[in-house]
């Protein structure tokens, strides 16, 4: 039994990297743009559906993945237009797109589950050959991190970061904040769809339900990664890497809980509660644990004097 658990670890890492990749997409919206984008539950499936459907129809894996990414970016575009062009709050905009994608994903696949089997297709990731899959996933994650590191250092990337940090300042500095929000949402959902395309190959199918709760797993990976690695370095590439590491740790815990015999029906609830507690920590710190700093009396007197009007 324990041996089984040990044997399953490489597969756990592979799953963790794929979901960590998806979490990088969540990081872009949640941390950089300061938007909680719920599109991801749908765009993950869109990526999987597009990749699987195209491959079943004879496409090679590489162009199929590329199309999956483009489809994800279109989903991000839709959410962005709902938000910036129609004034819908971002959370609601994401929910609307998510629901639209449910129908679209069914239409893409023509059914709720599209098998994608390794014996029929050349796949880049599969549970059947873990070592090669692991190597591929590590390379893909490294490439995505390198690409984002460069992109967010460019003029456009900086304006996207500024938009998430300070909207007024961005507009005052001539940044079209509607455009930067849309670009950020497109990048995010493109990466989420990329993760979806790999997940479909790995699991041997694209499934209409595979994205349920993706946003929560993504947030958990972001939060866990920050908790573990934020002290090591503040470098942007390290932050992105920590998100992937967060994903791996999440699935390691997940596997362990299964091994310990916990009812797997409860896993989604536990993930959500974990995220809720982590999100609450900054709030609790501010509300219950912050005491005004005690200043030496001399400083207080000096400040009081400065406040007296200089008549």
């Amino acid at each position: 039994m324990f041996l089984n658990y040990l044997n399953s670890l490489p597969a756990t890492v592979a799953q963790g990297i794929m979901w960590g990749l998806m979490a990088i997409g969540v990081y872009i919206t949640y941390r950089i743009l300061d938007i909680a984008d719920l599109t991801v539950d749908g765009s993950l499936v869109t990526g999987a559906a597009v990749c699987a459907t195209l491959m079943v129809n004879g496409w090679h894996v590489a162009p199929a993945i590329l199309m999956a990414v483009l489809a994800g970016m279109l989903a991000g575009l839709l959410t962005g237009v709902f938000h910036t062009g129609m004034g819908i709050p971002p959370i609601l905009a994401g929910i609307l797109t998510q629901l639209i994608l449910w129908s679209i994903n069914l239409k893409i696949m023509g059914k709720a589950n599209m098998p994608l089997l390794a014996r029929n297709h050349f796949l880049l990731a599969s549970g059947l050959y873990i070592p090669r899959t692991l190597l591929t996933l590590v390379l893909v994650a490294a490439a995505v991190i390198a690409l984002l590191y460069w992109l967010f250092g460019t003029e456009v990337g900086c304006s996207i970061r500024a938009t998430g940090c300070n909207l007024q300042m961005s507009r005052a500095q001539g940044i079209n904040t509607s455009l930067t929000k849309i670009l950020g949402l497109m990048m995010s959902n493109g990466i989420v769809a990329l993760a979806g395309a790999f997940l479909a190959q790995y699991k041997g199918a694209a499934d209409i339900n595979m994205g349920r709760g993706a946003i929560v797993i993504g947030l958990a990976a972001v939060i866990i990664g920050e908790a573990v690695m934020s002290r090591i370095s503040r470098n942007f590439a390290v932050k992105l890497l920590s998100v992937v590491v967060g994903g791996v740790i999440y699935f390691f815990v997940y596997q362990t809980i299964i091994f310990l015999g916990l009812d797997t029906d409860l896993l989604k609830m536990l993930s959500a509660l974990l995220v809720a507690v982590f999100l609450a920590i900054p709030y609790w710190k501010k509300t219950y644990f912050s005491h005004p700093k005690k200043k030496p009396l001399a400083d207080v007197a000096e400040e009081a004097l400065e406040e007296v009007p200089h008549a």
Partner: protein
Amino acid sequence: MLELVNVSKTFLAGTVNEKKVLKSVNLHLKPGDFVTVIGGNGAGKSTTLNAVAGVFPVDEGNILIDGMDVTHLSEHRRAAYIGRVFQDPMMGTAANMEIYENLAIAARRGKHRGLRWSSTAKEREYYRELLATLGLGLEERPNAKVGLLSGGQRQALTLLMATLRQPKVLLLDEHTAALDPKTAAKVLEITEDIINRSSLTALMVTHNMKDAIAHGNRLIMMHDGKIIYDVEGEEKKALTVEMLIAKFAQSSGEEFANDRALLS
């Protein structure tokens, strides 16, 4: 350089809280004019600046910058011609980004932003020199996150950012009001210095009557959405705080209703 023609704005129109904040405001700034703006609470000072900046569309009238009608230009497009510093020191800079990165963003105000790296080594050298002119030691730590700076340092940096690309109009909205007196004086000194060096056209809202008299070549007083007093040159230089308060009572028929201004 800046022209407001019959500009009107009503907030919450059609509700019980309807407020006519600007009533047919006319204002013409010549190139190089440094105008200080005073007035009581709710007089329309900040609203005037925000109307120029394009934060909201105006109900009536036109706004021209250097002869060009910008009335219907969006806020970010208009930013190409306008430098802005806000009352809240947090508002003018991106806290999570480095000093260099903030300056790099300001250096591209009104320019196309593409896939080039955000700043070149040569540009960063130039930013360092500019930072040194502030005399605040910021040039020693250009990679520091702006969130770590004090309010005064952030306002000084915002001033630098607002003028890094020469604006046709510089809008200062009570930009020293949130600072302690010593820092406020320093930031005001830097403001005066930057405006003089590049002969900028500027509108500066202040609640401090002494500052309003001491700085700029022209002073306007606003009350109830209108400009009630406009003075420049020698006549402005001769003003005193008492004269301004008397002028206010005479023009508006009311007591000057801004206790902050009276105390200053």
